[in-house]
């Protein structure tokens, strides 16, 4: 939401600017906004050991209130100000800035951008030192500290990066789909719970950036399908939220069997030299190359 707000601000501030400049600037603004918003819980986690799940939930609520304030106040569509209805939404951004659609489908450029980002994140996490360090911190904080990695810095950084991508998601939603920002006063009005469903998609993709691509399409399809179902045969879309919750629970529940299977495999086949943990090669790298 913060990302979307920043992007809208850029779009509305320069209505006559060249699209080639304004749109990237807006998307970038969205990312910066998201990075700052995600970085705050990151810093809190890194330096004060504040549980990131709790602080991000609070940050969500604060963002919702900030959004409501801006959309009802300073950013409200001038057209709506004239009318009695006063729907809390911003003015439409200039049509020149709309992300081009890939005719003949309704896919817009943002979809391609998302796939590109997934690949970039994969490269970042598995092919750079930075990514290696982030994963090391996630796998074993103590070991990473002994290896001389600045653990707090990478915790904050990874949350800021994920915030940046979430901000981009908000910005793309504006420039590709809605062309304005609106609110129904709740956390889920504008994003349609996309954030929480994003968590589900990430899990479903086994927390691997490339795995999230099919997972995200699957859940996008489920959600669109849910809305269609609601219109066509009056099956409430809430059903899909319910099912999504169950999916998360089931996915994490199968963890036990996955671990058991992995352990069995290790016992049957003695440890090879490059499988020894905490050598200079990334622990998971050998397996990953096989699957990609």
């Amino acid at each position: 939401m913060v990302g979307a707000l920043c992007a809208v601000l850029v779009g509305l501030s320069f209505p006559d600017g060249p699209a080639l400049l304004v749109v990237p600037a807006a998307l970038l603004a969205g990312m910066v906004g998201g990075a700052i918003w995600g970085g705050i819980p990151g810093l809190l986690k890194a330096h004060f050991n504040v549980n990131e799940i709790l602080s991000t939930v609070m940050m969500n609520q604060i963002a919702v209130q900030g959004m409501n304030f801006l959309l009802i106040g300073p950013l409200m569509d001038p057209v709506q100000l004239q009318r009695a209805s006063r729907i809390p939404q911003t003015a439409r951004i200039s049509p020149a800035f709309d992300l081009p659609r890939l005719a003949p489908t309704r896919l817009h450029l943002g979809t391609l951008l998302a796939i590109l980002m997934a690949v970039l994140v994969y490269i970042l996490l598995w092919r750079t030192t930075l990514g290696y360090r982030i994963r090391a911190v996630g796998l074993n904080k103590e070991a990473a500290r002994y290896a001389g990695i600045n653990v707090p810095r990478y915790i904050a950084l990874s949350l800021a990066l994920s915030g940046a991508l979430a901000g981009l998601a908000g910005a793309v939603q504006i420039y590709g789909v809605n062309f304005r920002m609106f609110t129904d006063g709740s956390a889920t009005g504008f994003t349609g719970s996309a954030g929480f469903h994003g968590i589900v998609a990430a899990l479903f993709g086994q927390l691997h950036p490339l795995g999230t691509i099919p997972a995200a399409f699957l859940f996008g399809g489920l959600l669109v399908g849910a809305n269609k179902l609601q219109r066509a045969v009056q099956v409430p879309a809430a059903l899909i939220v319910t099912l999504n919750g169950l999916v998360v629970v089931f996915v994490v529940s199968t963890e036990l069997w996955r671990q058991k299977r992995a352990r069995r495999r290790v016992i049957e086949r003695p440890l090879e030299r490059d499988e020894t943990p905490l050598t200079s090669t990334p622990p998971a790298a050998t397996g990953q190359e096989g699957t990609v």
Partner: protein
Amino acid sequence: MIGELLTAQVLLGILTSGIRLATPYLYAAIGETFGQRSGVLNLGVEGQMLVGAFAAFYVARRTGSLWLGVAAALFVGALMGLIMAFVSITLHAQQGISGIGFYLFGLGLSDLLFQTLLGTVQTVSGFRPLAIPLLSRIPVLGEVFFNQNLLVYGAYLLVPIAAFVMDKTTFGLKIRAVGENPEAADSLGVNVSLVRYITVTLGGALSGLAGASLSIALLNVFQQNLTSGLGFIAVALVYFGGWRPWGVLAGALLFSMVNALQLWVQVLGLPIPSEFAVMMPYVLTILALVVAVQRVRPPTALTKPFVREG
């Protein structure tokens, strides 16, 4: 403008509604305290509250009996707690993420049932304020403390009971042992899984009751996402309270007083945008978390599944 806030009548109003608003936080956070003390982080509180709130509302509306509603909320909350216990204790699922799963499940399910069974926002005549004889006659204090509804009294009674169970009984000792050092507890013959099953199920039941206190005692309505983040705040309050019932009480009161203050700011029409006023409790919670985490150490085995070696 500050002077307006400080009149006796307004202060009294803030105190009265603050005491009342703390009710759902207390139920949910005390329940969560038991779970976390035994080493299980249940982030599904919000979902359990929503389902409990709906169950209480629906049953109370259908049968006309508020007590049946309370029973229904306790039952479905406990049921969800039991499933959460199975997933996190027997299946060793990651507790943070499965909690989010239960949150989404509860959010969706309560909305689904609401749309199919009720359709529109309806009201129910919930628990009425019940003045305690004699005590409610005490000037000022009587109005603040002894003229609330039954579920409010219940929440405040729960605090000393929970503190007593936790600190003075064998069962409380077992809970703490299991949360601090499950291996040691296990070797002394304490059934780690059983203790955790009990605390998480109890936490679920109390979360359900917290939902009921919203839908049939404080607000007397049910709507989509009725709790709007309240369950997550309850979890934060457990951290804030240092995993002790009395600490949780202090946190819940502080939080709900700020909330009540915020409501009065809006009622009086002070020149602060209402959105910023609504933000205040959340900002406060984050700050409180920063301070609280420095002060006390969480149960050692929190979020760690127990696997018997060998």
